[in-house]
């Protein structure tokens, strides 16, 4: 019996007054993020959306612990993310970033191998994770034998293999064609229903954002700031037919309006 289904403990994420400044004062520093605060409930599907340069990817990187804000703090389940805590937060990038010299299974085992977990348990958990993402028969394939969507699924399996409290995803479907994107979106929701951890998802696509999210943080650029948090109360499980409803269109338009006309202090044009 596969040991998923809500046994994964989910953690909430607290972002408190985070700012990110690149460069030094004389050279003309760029303020990538300005005073962002938000709260992500455990087990929720949270989406960050916004134009290029709004700092959403930087914010996600800070949640992984690989990047530190110039001021402010990020807590994941109460733990300050001063460095990566891989059993707390798994990461999926836009490019799958699988190691080409390893099979799919070995790629998924990678985080466990780093932790020194013995081979037998590694194999077991990796195969479970691959099964979860629907790639049970492809464990021995190498990345170059897999399609873009399949590679991304392996990447997701790798992110989930440690059953982290949070899964961080940085535009994971951006490099895929539209049909694959839609399929993967459904897949992801199906997996999430089973595992139940918190998901933070960054995307450019408003359609994708509304389809997947419980809550959407809409950000503006120059400097990157949180404009509004839009709640999506479409019923779950989501289906593609919902994309044709007026509620869906309304939410999309709302977000689009926010992005086009950033209101509030501290924005340039």
């Amino acid at each position, binding site marked *: 019996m596969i040991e998923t289904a809500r046994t994964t403990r989910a953690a909430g994420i607290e972002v408190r007054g985070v700012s990110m400044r690149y460069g030094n004062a004389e050279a003309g520093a760029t303020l990538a993020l300005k005073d962002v605060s938000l709260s992500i409930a455990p087990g929720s599907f949270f989406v960050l959306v916004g134009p290029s340069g709004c700092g959403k990817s930087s914010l996600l990187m800070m949640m*992984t612990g*690989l990047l530190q804000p110039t001021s402010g703090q990020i807590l994941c389940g109460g733990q300050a993310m001063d460095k*990566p*805590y*891989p059993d707390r937060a798994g*990461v999926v*990038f836009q*490019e799958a*970033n699988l*190691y*080409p*010299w*390893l099979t799919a299974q070995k790629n998924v085992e*990678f*985080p466990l*191998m*780093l*932790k020194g977990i013995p081979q037998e348990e590694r194999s077991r958990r990796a195969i479970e994770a691959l099964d979860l993402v629907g790639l049970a028969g492809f464990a021995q394939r*190498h*990345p*170059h034998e897999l399609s873009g969507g399949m590679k991304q699924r392996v990447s997701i399996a790798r992110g989930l293999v440690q059953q982290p409290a949070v899964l961080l995803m940085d535009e994971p479907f951006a490099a895929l064609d539209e049909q694959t994107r839609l399929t993967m979106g459904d897949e992801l929701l199906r997996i999430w229903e089973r595992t139940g951890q918190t998901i933070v998802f960054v995307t450019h696509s408003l359609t994708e954002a509304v389809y997947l999210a419980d809550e959407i943080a809409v950000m503006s650029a120059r400097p990157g700031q949180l404009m509004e948090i839009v709640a999506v109360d479409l019923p779950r499980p989501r289906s593609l037919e919902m994309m044709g409803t007026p509620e869906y269109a309304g939410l999309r338009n709302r977000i689009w309006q926010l992005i086009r006309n950033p209101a509030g202090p501290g924005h340039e044009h």
Partner: protein
Amino acid sequence: MKTSRWSAALLHPITFFAAAIAVWEAAARAGVVDPILLPSASQVAQVLAQLLGQAGTWEAIGVTALETLGAFLIAVPAGMLIGWFLAENRYWGAVFKPLFYFLFSIPKSIFLPMFILAVGIGLEQKIAFGVFSTIFIVVMSISTAIESVSGRHRLVAECYGASRRQIALHVFLPSMLPAILETLRLAMVFNFTGIILAEMYVSRAGIGHLLERWGQNYMLPQLMAGVVIVSCAAIVFNESLRALENKFGHWRASR
């Protein structure tokens, strides 16, 4: 696809060699060229068999092999260390890389007199010149290989909490293995060439010296047999290493 199988067989290097040898033999027998200038393939084969039965030949081969191995074992680790340093150290890398590129295109042979004056004409001089011929390609090849290790691969490992040692072992090493093998292969090409050249220039021993002597004395069958010996040695090593490269780099071609 019968046609492609045929053309693959037809154009395989071995077919070329076989055809070239056939043409050679035919031309020699037909008396197209003076037999002193171009001994027939069969004659060269005979002389080759004779030479391989003589102790003197094997002694020369042994000397050359020793020099080649010695230079290789010094130049490759040294070059890898320097190349690693230049790749990891942005600043000094930027300072020295153009210099290395330039040094690379200078005929190294012009420095042979310096080596002779400094180290003499014996084994040590050949090894020293071999190291000199090889070290630049190793430095450049390795530093390119290190730099081409995907930053994203490193990033993933860091996300999952890998230590520096783990990153070196589980990301750099497998990622670079085919490139390291290629470096070894190229290093040997340059190394062997340098050693043979040094032996041909001024030497008392080694296969290069024999070649030069046979050339001076117009002993063409022996000269051509010598060419065959050296060519075979070079190709065997090269292709073996290339086979290894392909085995470990099967994932490279498809990226």
